[in-house]
């Protein structure tokens, strides 16, 4: 049993002004090993909060979240994280960034450098080991972040809008890369995105979240990720089913946004 299980998860923030924000309300879900979950929702619906709780950076107000039957009570190597802006260590080279986790564990340096080379090849950065990270493009930086996370062999990979800052073309390539890695490693992945297309393409499962209080609004099981492993992503987008789903979700999110705006005006 290596599932991610969330039971009645609640997160209530207190702002310094004394207001309370109910960021997550009664979240219940189970994610099986090897599943790829994408999370979609309007801004401020608690996606990052959910991920932060899963990563162990913050503790929920109430409720329990478990991975492999063990309650999550802090950051850990078994849960890797990829951030929107890479969050690379710019004082280190690409290779040093990638092997950061192994070095912290004082692993054998020869084995480490072998692993680093393997992973750099997988993410398509062969030969960039000695490049300083600040000399890389945005897409390359995200690849480094991916490799840095994966080299630690985590059970669960958490990605918070990892492709949000990339241009359309790079983004497409990276989407294929994520799928490829998912297939080859069989990792459990939670990926947060703002793009409906991306959520549909990558998500084996898809949660659409709603704000105030943050909750899971609708859940989908999708075939496109498995298709994407064989087919070209652009072909899938032309799929009729895909188009319908996209319109449906878009409308759902539009309505939510309208509701928020209406409330605020």
């Amino acid at each position, binding site marked *: 049993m290596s599932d991610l299980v969330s039971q009645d998860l609640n997160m209530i923030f207190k702002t310094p002004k004394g207001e309370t924000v109910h960021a997550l309300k009664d979240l219940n879900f189970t994610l099986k090993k090897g599943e790829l979950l994408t999370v979609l929702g309007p801004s401020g619906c608690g996606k990052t909060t959910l991920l932060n709780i899963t*990563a*162990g*950076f913050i503790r929920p107000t109430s409720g329990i979240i478990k991975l492999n039957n063990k309650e999550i009570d802090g*950051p*850990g*190597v078994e*849960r*890797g*994280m990829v*951030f929107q*802006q890479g*969050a690379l*260590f*710019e*004082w*280190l080279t690409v290779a040093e960034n990638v092997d*950061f*986790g192994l070095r*912290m*564990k004082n692993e054998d340096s020869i084995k480490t450098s072998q692993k680093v080379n393997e992973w750099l090849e997988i993410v398509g950065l062969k030969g960039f080991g000695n490049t*300083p*990270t*600040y000399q890389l493009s945005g897409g390359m930086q995200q690849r480094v*972040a991916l490799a*840095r*996370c994966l080299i*630690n062999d*985590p059970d669960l990979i958490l990605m918070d809008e990892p492709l949000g800052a990339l241009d359309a073309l790079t983004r497409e390539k990276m989407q294929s890369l994520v799928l490829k890695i998912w297939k080859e490693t069989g990792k459990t992945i939670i990926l947060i995105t703002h793009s409906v297309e991306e959520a549909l393409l990558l998500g084996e499962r898809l949660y659409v979240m709603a704000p105030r209080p943050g909750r899971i609004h609708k859940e989908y099981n999708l075939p496109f990720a498995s298709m994407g492993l064989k087919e070209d992503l652009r072909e899938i987008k032309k799929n009729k089913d895909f188009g319908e789903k996209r319109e449906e979700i878009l409308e759902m999110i539009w309505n939510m946004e309208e509701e928020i705006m209406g409330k605020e005006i």
Partner: protein
Amino acid sequence: MLTQAVTFLIFFAVIGCILYGRKLIKTEKVDAVFGNPERALGGTHWVIVGSSFLLLIWLYYSWDIAKGFYPKSANELCQVAKVNDSLLGLKYQFPIEERELKSTSQIKKENKNLKNINIEIQSSENLNNEQKIILVSFINKTNQLIPLLTNEDLLENETKQKIYDITGKINLLTEKFQKPDYPFETEQELNDRLKAVSEEGGWGITKIDAGSGTIENTIEVPLIPATNKGLKFHAAAQELNLISDEFFKLRNHNPRFKNKIKEIKDQIKTYRKSLDESEEVASNYAKNIMKIARRIEFASIYPPNALDMMQNAIIKFENVQIKAQGGLRFIDILLFPAGTIVASGPSCSEQGSGRWLPKPSDTLNKFILMSKPSVGYKDIPLLWIDMVDVSRMIGFILPDWIADILPGDYPIHTNDGIVKQNFKGNVLNIVTGNFKLFKVPVPYGHIWDSFMRVFLGLVFGILIGVPLGLFMGLNRFAKGFFDPLIELYRPVPPLAWAPLIISVLGIDNTGKVFLLFMVSLSIMIISARAGASGTQLSKIHAAHSLGASKRQILRYVIFPNSLPEILTGIRVAVGMCWGTLVAAEFLAGTTGIGFVENVAKKYFQYEVIWITIFIMGMLGLLFDITLRKIIDKTIPWRGKG
């Protein structure tokens, strides 16, 4: 010689660079719009123009150009100054440079004084009528003195003859002065003079005081005439002095005047004696009238045209001597800006910018001299190397109590008066440095002392400030606990602490290093704290998920992330420490660059002051460039994260 070469060099450099710059502007496509920073890039030739101008201004206003091209001019101008000074005594009697004849202005002045005193007496309430009448009669009598002096007919023959003689002497001098062989000098005199000249040395020469080994200020401009031209003026000045002495002794006192003034004096004396104490006011007025009478007596007032011939003679000599100056006049006007030597009179010193602005050539000479370890400043070289035995350093580092805590006793001498060494004694020798090893070179001197103080203050500041600052950036307790302490002493200007710290910790290194430590500590704490608290949360999160421990995060994430801030802090701290140190050395101490400047200030050694300013500027620049290089090398990612 060097000055000439440098002057020509920079002159042509300026012209060359300006022409090159113009050509560049013409040929360059001007595609950059105004405001584009690209337009300010490059342009080394303008750097040359700028620095050359600076040097040129320095050379010019310090009168180094005058010294380089006309080394004898100062000495010659000094002789001219002597003539001017001697002439002044004669000239001021006449409307040559003044508006009116001295006699006229004195008569005017005394008439006015008499009139004023008359009005005062008339309107005074403290005088009775009888007193007033007597005092006014004194005034009228005094007034009658003046015509006795100004009447041509009363001028005595003897006085006329004297005036004639003096006029003749001036004319004779004028004639002699124009002859090329004036003044006549015997072989012996010539040799003596030349010997004295060479002993006195040239313009602005610097000598080392043989006794103390330090550089002493010598006379700026040599007094003894070194050239034939100078000698001519020197001799004329001496003759003029004699003439004007003679003229000053002359008084235009004819018998009638003498009688009259004696009469006035006697009358006033008698009158004052007759007054009792209650009539002090009247007595005082009488005294004042007598004073005026005496001034008229000594004023050398002459009839209006009595001195005409003499005036003409003086004007003639004046014209001749000005003509004889020739090119020297133009050198004085053109190459001695913002002041002159002539104004100093016979004292022959530089008056004006040449006085406080040292000449580049002198400064360089003195700097080369001071750089010699045997000269230095106040018996200490600027920067030199001393051979020190390593044993002394070991003895300095090891504490003496190591020997004390060993078991046993120190050796005691025997009955034979022999001391047998034992183990404990040997250890004592080692910890006190009382043994011989090999020698290593150790730098010392003023520059080294200043440098070490900054260096040590900085190192201590970094060693304590950086960890504390990082800690304060991450820990609420540390921030809250240490913040008041730091915020209390930091806003106080460092120099305000100096007197306190120096009096507690002593004027030597300890006090100054501690002061600099205080300066660097607050800067390092603040920058390290800013660096630590500026670490992006996502980086720390990432490190956490990668399995780093708290200590590892501190070491591998927070510290390198704060490095740019820390290094910038060091750069700021170096500047602050350097500034504070020099001022602290001003306050107290016996070594260091600031000390040198302070002493130089006391003795008006302008060159030394400028040398220290240069040394400090250069060292400060060196520090900054080194640090900038280090920063560029160690944190190439700065501003790119």
